[in-house]
């Protein structure tokens, strides 16, 4: 039942050190890691998503765009089973991850969530010290040597460009950080677990341009090793970093649905659907 691989230190160290910035959009190996088939989602009686089908490719960055309330967050929530936590949320359709049925009730959800990390729109640092925020999930997943924890903490904080800002006050509360610092801390915390997939729900919306740039670079460096699904309202950003893009829309004030999905270049430069064309051209970034 337990699908978490045992943590071995070499794997850890190896992959915290990310490679240099990769060239850009054109992708990698088009092997679908997550397959979503005919996904429909209801909150109580209100439908939020209808018949969404798409593939998330391994090692690639997939951007999801669309207006507010079209179900992007809901879609992400299905992928790591956060929907389990919302009462009255019903999901139907098929979702496969690595060939395994994601909606299997017998699935080890914790293992899954370790493999598929998530960053929220509103940063959620725990009311603990900065250090404990990062160490807590690591310890939970079996890493307990303090030296190792220290190393990882430093590495991931450096990755998100927070190390220099907080290294002197690792023991102070994470809640006293500014909004942007909080969000970077949350990203660092998720990276520390070395997930296979990272779901990011508008990770940069709370960041200033500089840290936003840092995070964007970071995401680009994740490419290849990690699979990233990112929801963003910043179309320019989506265009810069994504390999694939999906465009969601709300039909008739009802449920959200996927209008178009494809290579990022195609979606932004040669959209098939007129709604997509209007959205990517008409809106100000």
């Amino acid at each position, binding site marked *: 039942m337990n699908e978490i691989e045992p943590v071995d230190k070499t794997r850890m160290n190896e992959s915290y050190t990310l490679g240099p910035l990769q060239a850009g959009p054109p992708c990698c190996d088009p092997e679908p890691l997550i397959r979503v088939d005919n996904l429909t989602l209801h909150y109580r009686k209100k439908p939020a998503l209808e018949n969404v089908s798409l593939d998330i490719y391994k090692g690639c960055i997939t951007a999801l765009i669309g207006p507010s309330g079209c179900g992007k967050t809901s879609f992400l929530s299905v992928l790591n089973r*956060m929907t389990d936590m919302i009462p009255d949320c019903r999901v139907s359709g098929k979702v496969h991850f690595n060939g395994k049925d994601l909606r299997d009730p017998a699935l080890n959800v914790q293992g*899954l969530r370790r493999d598929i990390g998530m960053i929220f729109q509103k940063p*959620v640092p725990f*009311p603990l010290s900065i250090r404990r925020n990062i160490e*807590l*999930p690591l310890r*939970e997943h079996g890493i307990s040597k303090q030296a190792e924890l220290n190393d990882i903490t430093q590495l991931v904080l450096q990755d998100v460009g927070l190390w220099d800002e907080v290294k002197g006050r690792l023991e102070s509360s*994470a809640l006293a950080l500014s909004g942007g610092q909080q969000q970077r801390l949350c990203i660092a915390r998720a990276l520390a677990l070395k997930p296979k997939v990272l779901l990011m729900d508008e990770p940069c919306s709370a960041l200033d341009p500089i840290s936003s740039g840092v995070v964007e670079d970071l995401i680009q460096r994740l490419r290849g090793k990690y699979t990233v699904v990112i929801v963003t309202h910043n179309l320019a950003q989506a265009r810069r970093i994504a390999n694939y893009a999906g465009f969601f829309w709300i039909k008739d004030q009802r449920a959200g649905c996927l209008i178009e999905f494809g290579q990022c270049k195609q979606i932004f430069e040669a959209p098939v659907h007129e709604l997509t064309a209007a959205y990517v051209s008409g809106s100000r970034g």
Partner: protein
Amino acid sequence: MSLSRADRQLLALLRGCALLSAVIVLLILLFLLRESWPVLRQVPLLRFVTDASWHPVDGLYQLTPMLSATLYSTLGAVLLATPLGIASAVFSRYYAPPFLAGLYRRLIELLAGIPSVVYGFWGLITLAPLIGRLHPPGVSLLTGILILTLMILPTVALTVDAALAAVPIAYVRGAAALGLSRWGLISGVALPAARSGIIAGIILAAGRAIGETMGVLMVAGNVVQQPLSLFDSVRTLTANIALEMAYATGEHRAALFVSGLALMLMVLVLVGTAELLFRERRYD
């Protein structure tokens, strides 16, 4: 800080109320002092810790055995009730299926209202003979601790439960998204976030344990002696007051009020240490 008129009126009202609660404490202290004055005036304070024994009728006022009995029984009960109470709250918040959680919470709420006489009565009839079989006389420090534990457990459980209920859902979701196990979420995030509520609950419970009278009176044995083992019979300060007050006159009566004062002093010291120990790093 400047406030609007509505707020200033509210503040005045609130100040009045808070003052009233402080006045009550003061009144009780004054009352105790007044009542114990006849003996405090004549007997040097040191004698309350150096006299040979507690035989107030014969002018012997040794209080330390009862002080330590109070301390031991409170400590024991708090040490037992804290993990059990926290576990109860965690159980009903995070482990029990909703139906069972509701039922369990109701059970605990009921227990909070069972009179201490009933606990004492039950302890005397059921628990003491069982323990007496292990080691006579049965009514003992251990029995006292167990009954006190039962009595304060609901206090701990209910306050911790309320504190856990107030942990923001965002933390729970954030923890879940990191693949934290249920226990990881509870021990790493929920309990630390509820920390100040938990400490308040424990302090409340400890207060109840120190002040508890009828329950311990029935099951602790009431012999004034330094307990050498858990099976020794002991008398707490409260039991001392309840046992003898009804028949005490003159200096004996005043000496009993001194044990009341000693108790308040002890609470003061305990509260002070708790404050030092748990000096909170508040995250907000």
